């Protein structure tokens, strides 16, 4: 395998990423403005499918955010993968990077974004949504502190105490992360009204999927950013690849089984939902994105070239990127009609049964991702974490 590696540090790479970020921001800006000017008048979700692309991407970003940190922390601190140290800062930075667009999307999804504060001032702790928000905020605090500790540790001459604190915090944040994932899963899974979600042990799946996506992200980060000079580089990359493959296959098998059970369970709503995923108008997201790019291609790559670090990087990237399709599928399908909707009984904006994201929704997603990318680039170039990494 060639040793020439993709290297973001090269200035043309930086330029490329900045360009991408600018493109996302620029392309999405009018959508964002549109969202503020016209509120929810130009969206594709409605009252029968109330949660659309933004919620799906939010969930996806949470998976990445929490999954990557879970994988990193477990491997690094629990299983003592020493070489992962190299991407410690980056792992937290990426997590933080995903958090910003996630919160932005979920905020814009609200009918009254500026009443977000109500969830802080008068939370209903009987609702998973309130828990999610609070856990997310706690998680955010953890992340920020961790990030700060990494930065401080990098600057400090005697980083041991800080690193120790970091470890404690990292371990402490593990259950918070798991709880957050579980809560997000429960927001969907606890709805007796939506049997598809209820049936599929959703919180557990959310955890699994978050781990798959997270391991993909961590692997990709490692392959990209860890110093190739280090001798353990190839071995670690290989191990990460194996882990990703294992999680990937486990996740795919588990969901396939649950899908099959649903299909054969005499529960029409669930069968409909599965039908919707595999044969609905957005089936490409399932077949092409998830099954094709997200499962088959990376599995083959990882299986055939288990040691080729570059291939591992590509495969891992494919996994974490294409996993965006998974929450989309789960979430939309779970909202497919049951008998009482009466979409024919009264028609009107938002009363249609199906869902297809509108241009405006895509634009807002693009803008949010652009913001994420911009944060990453800013952090990457301006915060003193690169130094550490370069120095090994």
């Amino acid at each position: 395998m060639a040793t020439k590696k993709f290297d973001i540090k090269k200035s043309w790479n930086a330029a490329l990423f900045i360009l991408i970020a600018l493109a996302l921001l620029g392309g999405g800006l009018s959508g964002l403005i549109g969202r503020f000017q016209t509120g929810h008048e130009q969206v594709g979700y409605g009252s029968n499918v109330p949660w659309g692309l933004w919620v799906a991407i939010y969930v996806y970003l949470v998976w990445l955010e929490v999954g990557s940190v879970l994988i990193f922390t477990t491997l690094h601190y629990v299983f003592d993968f020493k070489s992962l140290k190299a991407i410690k800062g980056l792992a937290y930075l990426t997590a933080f990077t995903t958090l910003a667009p996630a919160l932005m999307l979920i905020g814009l999804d609200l009918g009254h974004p500026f009443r977000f504060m109500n969830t802080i001032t008068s939370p209903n702790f009987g609702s998973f949504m309130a828990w999610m928000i609070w856990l997310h905020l706690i998680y955010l605090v953890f992340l920020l502190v961790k990030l700060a500790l990494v930065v401080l540790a990098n600057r400090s001459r005697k980083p041991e105490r800080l690193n120790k604190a970091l470890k404690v915090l990292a371990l402490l944040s593990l259950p918070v992360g798991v709880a957050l994932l579980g809560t997000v899963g429960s927001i969907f899974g606890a709805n007796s009204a939506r049997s598809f979600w209820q049936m599929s042990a959703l919180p557990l799946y959310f955890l699994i999927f978050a781990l798959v996506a997270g391991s993909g992200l961590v692997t990709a980060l490692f392959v990209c950013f860890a110093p190739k000079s280090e001798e353990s580089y190839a071995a670690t990359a290989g191990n990460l690849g194996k882990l990703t493959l294992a999680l990937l296959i486990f996740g795919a098998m588990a969901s396939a089984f649950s899908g099959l059970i649903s299909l054969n369970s005499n529960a029409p709503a669930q069968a409909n939902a599965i039908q919707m995923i595999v044969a609905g108008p957005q089936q490409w997201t399932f077949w092409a994105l998830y099954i094709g790019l997200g499962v088959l291609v990376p599995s083959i790559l990882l299986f055939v070239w288990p040691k080729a670090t570059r291939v591992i990087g590509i495969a891992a990237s494919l996994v974490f990127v294409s996993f965006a399709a998974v929450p989309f599928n789960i979430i939309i399908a779970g909202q497919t009609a049951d008998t009482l909707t009466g979409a024919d009984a009264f028609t009107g904006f938002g009363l249609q049964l199906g869902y297809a994201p509108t241009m405006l929704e895509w634009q807002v997603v693009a803008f949010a991702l652009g913001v994420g990318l911009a944060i990453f680039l800013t952090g990457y170039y301006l915060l003193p974490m690169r130094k550490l990494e370069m120095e090994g």
Partner: protein
Amino acid sequence: MSEQINTHPKDCSLSRRDFLKLSGAAGAATAFLGALPKVNEVMAGGNEQAAYTLALAENQIYTVCQQCNTQCGLKVKLLDGVIAKVDGNPYNPFNMVPHVAYETPITDMAKTEGALCPKGQASIQTTYDPYRLVKVVKRKPGTPRGGGEWVTMDFDTALTEIIEGGDLFGEGPVEGLKDIYALRDSKVAQAMSDFVKKILAEKDKDKKAALVKEFKTTFAKDLDKLIDPDHPDFGPKNNQLLFFWGRLKGGRSDFISRVIGSGFGTTNRIGHTTVCNGSVYFAGKAMSEQFVEGKWADGKKFYWQVDSANSQFIIFIGVNPFEASQGPTNRSPRITTGLVERGLKYVVVDPRLSKTASKAWKWLPNIPGSEGALALALIQQVLQNNKHNVKFLENANKAAASADKEPTWSNASWLIKIDEKGEAGKFLRGSDLGLEPEERQKADGSGTWLFDPFVTLRGDQTITFDPNAVEPEFTAEGDLLVDTTVNGIRVKSSLQLLWESANSKTLDEWAEISGLRASDIAEVAAEFTNYGRRAAAEPHRGASQHSNGFYNIVAWNSLNLLIGNYDYAGGMTTGFAYDHTGSKDGQPFNLGKLTNGKTTPFGINIVRSEVKYEDSTLFAQDGYPAKRQWYPLASDIYQEILTSAADGYPYPIKAAFIYMGAPTYSLPAGHTNIEILRDPKKIPLVVANDILIGETSMYADYIFPDLSNLERWEMAGIQFSMPWKVMPVRNPAVAPLVDEVTVFGQQMPCSLEALLLGIAEKLELPGVGPGGLGDAGDLMHPDHFYLKMVANLAFGDKKPDAEKKEPGELLPDADDEEVRIFTEARRFLPPSVFDLERWRASAGDEWWRKVVYVLNRGGRFQDYAKAFDGTKLKNKYGKQINLYQEKTVGVKNALTGEHYQGLAVYLPGPFDLSGKPIQDSAEYDLRLITHREVYHTKARTITNYWLLALSPENSVQLNSLDAARLGLKNDDVVKIVSATNPEGEWDFGAAVGKRPIAGKVKIIEGLRPGVVTFSLGHGHWATGSTDVVIDGALIKGDPRRVKGIHANAAMRTDPIFPDMCLTDPVGASAVFYDTMVKVEKM
């Protein structure tokens, strides 16, 4: 001069609060503010707790809905002068069952509301339609009719143009009304009218010719005022003004009669009856003809419907009371309550599973057009099993009926002479038995007439009788089934003829014809006679709008006669109105008489109704076949109006006014009317009164904006299924959105009335203007007319008689509180509409408080219990019902000279106007029908977006078997083509162009295979659905309004008259359900 009246404060919360403070209502309002449940305090948030002012009587005006023809009562609730909500009027029997006592104070009813159907609930949107016209528009000179280009015009200028004529459109001179208003001398008009009556009445050809000659010499100096002096029966040139309408109710109809009829003097004032349910009306008329001074007369244009609230068993034939049928609102609760609480059973005869049919005991999806066959099958079964009401049927005259306390009687036992060919003709009369006719005095004292009695048979005794005799000694009862010879004359009884007609086929054959099972028919027949008089059969459009429609209806009415259910609770009833015209003894304003002059209209009308071809001067000239059909038994023949005018038969029309009708849309083959209207040579001047640029008014030269139903007056009348005496009064509930104009120096909103008054002012027509109401003063503002009508209603139909201690029907005065509320509630109406002093003066001080009493309740309504009299109904038809119609037999088809039949028969349809059967080629393999959905009406509800939310688009509905055969799936777009529209196309003219008759497929099970249907109300090309240009500015059409299919253009035209839909020659119904079509995938 014109200024928009619109007073629409966007934010006048202040004015409302001020009002609350000022009015006595403040107390009430704060009272409930204080008593707010806690939840509202918790939830008040940033918003202050608001008074629900809609609950105050001061914010409510009672008026009448007109989303469909049912005319239910409305309670309009206003907020700052904007209609915030409408609900049902609890005083009105259409909205409540039973309705609340009329005397209930209105403050007690402020929080009670009656029911409304979805169209009623949405009626706000008809008034607040962004596409409504505010100003008069004129077709832009140089552009064609239907070109979609308009210029606005001042009301007065437009009127002047219409009156004066000239080169109005750059197409050459157009004759104005001043020239058409040729005969102006009231004495001459009256004299000519009397003379023409004589000419028409003369049966002898030569004598008729002589009379015409005499006419010409008598009126030599006025002959230039006639359309054709050789045909004085065409009447004066005034008849070349045609005024026709779609939906018209009392009050406005009186206005039109006064201005256009006795004012302008044209006989051509024609309505839309035949497009609606013509043969139901004219079968009713034929069966209600009475023997009056030697002639069959006084037949009422009316019909009977079931008193569904009290019935135990009903057969609904082609009628859908849950969704249409003059009233889902009034009829549904009576039927559903019957179903659940009274064990009502009903049958629905309809090829389509309507919502009514979905709850039926039996749904009989018959073959369209076989309704008469089914009725005869039932008649056969009833008679065969001797289940008919012999006692009732034997009564041959009023005396016999009275002796049995029967409100009605029939001619079932009367004897009819049978000719050599075995055909039934005239009744056997005393003179046939050698009796000398008796000379009697005419009721009006104008002379004598010869009474020649009718004959019935009892055993072998002939009994001669007077149908109208009341004295017990003249009681006549006769045998029912008679086929014998009397005095050498072959005779049969009416019922015998019916029995023979019913036996012209076996039960199995009838079943085969109607596509039903014989066992079902037998079962229905058995059930029908199980409930005494509390059973009934009600036919409507699905039975009447066929070429055999008249006889279908006659057959079902005859079935009812067999059980004698007329005027019985749960049987057949009819409508009863309080007289608003003041013709009853003692009523304050006899508006028919109060006038300062008139131009008596006379002559044959353009659709040749109510006159026999043979009586006209044309007959001598043309003989059979006539150039077009004549309709002596019908009137208001909508489909003949524009086609005859275009044909110039019997004479050309120079100017046509159309009010609230859209024949281009509503008629079968309505596209033929578009073609006529588009050609200014056919009718040189077309003026429409419409609330917007509609499906027909878009082809007019001028459109005068009208008031919407919530802004105007009308005496909304009765429906025949409601046994109470009523008169709902439509009165202005909201400030008009149209221009204000000045006529006779009076400010008024642009409206039908303003248009009529304007014409009257400019032409100085009699009966209008200063002193127009004779002793009752001026008619210069609509109020002068309408408030007098309300005063008449307040008086009632019976005057109090102190001696006989009869209270009469005089209403009490409204008390001070009611007057205050009345006035407050109208505070948002501009003075041009509501001026307390003008109103009071119009009604007269003496009547004013009573008028308030009526208007506060939205009209006058008889109390619930007053409609019932034991098992009978209190308000009665109470006359003879003809099983055999001698008058009908006396009428000949003007195309063939063959006489019509006088009793229930089954005529296999479809046939053309000469009676010749039509057989289209086999490729047209589906029978096209049409139906109503509860949430749409014809050309109007497309503007109601709430209703569009229920059904944005209609569809082409097919049974799954047909769909499978044709390889069609749901939502496939298909075109409907027929033998007379093989392109399957509408041609809307210059602006809109051609469009296919196309819609989306909907596959259903609830439809007889072989039948295809679509619902009424979609497929628009005007009414805001398509772009128009006014004063050079583009007004974009609303894509929501253009959706769906309207397949009337596929409906068949008559082979003899390709410009007109198929038509029932006798009852004149426009035929909707007799077209075979092909459904083609596009």
